[in-house]
Every structure is written in structure tokens, then in C-alpha cells.
């Protein structure tokens, strides 16, 4: 599941943030005018690497990205429960409605 969560992060000059939640450890690619960076969470510890013309990243930007990844993870976890639950509820119609 890839969550495009641009609205969730306020990073100066941000063009796009893409989170790849398919991996066991999430990764966020942040593209901005002043060069992008990738934040990955390997073994639950954060690492930052540059993409193309990287010119540095502030701790404020990093904490915003980290927060957005956390929110995206929470949304993903809720959807992983809610979607199958909804299908199950539709399949088994409930009290008094069984054939």
C-alpha cells in the first residue's frame, strides 16, 4: 500500500512525499525543490539518505516526516482491520437475517 500523504507534512518547498508501506519497515520519499531525501525505518531506527541534489534536512522537517509516517502506519493498521471486517459483516448479515 502506497500512501501519498502530501497534505500530512509541511516541509519547505515540498513537491511530493510518497510512503511505501508494503515493506515491513516503512519508507518515506520526500521530494522538494531543494533536493529530496529518503527516510527509512530499518530495525525500527531512523536513517536518512539523499536523493539527487540533496542540500540538507532540518530536524523539524524530519520530525514532521516521522509524524506523517506514524499517521500513515496507524491508518494502514486501521484499514487492515476495517476492510476485511466490513466484507465479513456483509457476508454474514447478522441477527434475524440468516436464511
Amino acid at each position, binding site marked *: 500500500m502506497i500512501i501519498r500523504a502530501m497534505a500530512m507534512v509541511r516541509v519547505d518547498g515540498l513537491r511530493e512525499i510518497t510512503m511505501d508501506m508494503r515493506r515491513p519497515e516503512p519508507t518515506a520519499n520526500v521530494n522538494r525543490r531543494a533536493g529530496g531525501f529518503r527516510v527509512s525505518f530499518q530495525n525500527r531506527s531512523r536513517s536518512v539518505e539523499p536523493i539527487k541534489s540533496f542540500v540538507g534536512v532540518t530536524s523539524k522537517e524530519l520530525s514532521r516526516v516521522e509524524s506523517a509516517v506514524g499517521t500513515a502506519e496507524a491508518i494502514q493498521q486501521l484499514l487492515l482491520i476495517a476492510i476485511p471486517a466490513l466484507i*465479513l*459483516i456483509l457476508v454474514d448479515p447478522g441477527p434475524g437475517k*440468516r436464511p
Partner: protein
Amino acid sequence: MYAAHFAASLAVKGRAPRAPLWALVTAAFLPDFVWIVLARAGVEPELPPRGFFDDWSHSLLMIVVASTLFALLFWKKDRVVAAAVWIAGLSHLILDFLIHPARLALYPHSAIHLGWSLWSYGQEKSSLGPNHYWWIEAAFIVLLLAVYGFSWRRVSPNWRIPAASCLLVAGLHLLSV
């Protein structure tokens, strides 16, 4: 565990058909819902340096409290339904008792921890492909879906609904290989 919690709510549904499935699924996942909120709020971290901590959502006391409070919502309407919802909530405790990232605490910040610490064993690859955790959860799913299926057979000859539900839960578990 993930698909096993769906299987547990179906098993309870099979024994108490009057109970709405949405309530049973919600009860079965209640500690996980609490965990998602608390993890996001930073109360239950899973990151270093504080490490994994989920006493507020997954300790024995808090699961009993959360299940009881949720079941009480159904008490006036139907006591059988309330009991079914309560059991669905407690099923989370039973399923997480065996394998969980950390042993379940008796109450938040308690030094006493319950459950088996099979987490490391569960992460090891088995000779049959997926890891041991996957196979243990599969065994629980088979057992719980059998309860659901046999309970259905007693009340209705229609096998399509339980078959579809069982296929969905089995499919969810297969996707997690």
C-alpha cells in the same frame, strides 16, 4: 495475531448468532484499536530507546476492563449478546497469550508478566516454509473456523455464508505468508 482475531469473532458468532458481527469483530480487536491510538500518541512506543511497551492496551487487566466496558453497552438490550461480546474481547487475551512481541503484563507497569515468550521461536523459519508463528496462528484459525462452521450447520443447511467467511479469513492468513 491478525486473521485469528477474525476467526475468534466468527467462532463466537457461531455460538451466539444473535450477536452482531460488527460488535464481535470490534471486541476481538479492541486492544489493537487502543494500541493504534496509544502508539500514535507515544504512550505505547515500539521504537528504541524506550522499546516495545503495550501494557495499557494489552495487559490482562486492561483487556478485561476494555472488554467489560464494551460488553456493558449491550447489557440492557440482550445479556446473551453482551456475554458473547465480552468473550470475543477476552479471546484477544487468549490468542496473544502464546505469542506476542512482549509477554503480557498483569496490569500496566506491572513487574508480573503472563503468557509464553514464544516470540523469538515464532519468528524462526519452519521447515514447511512460513515461520512458526504463521503455523501456530493457522492452527488457531482452523480450530476457531471449525467451531464457527459446525455451529452454523446446527442452525442452517446453507453452507455458502460460512464457507465465504472461512475463505476470507483463510485468505487473509495466506496473504500474510
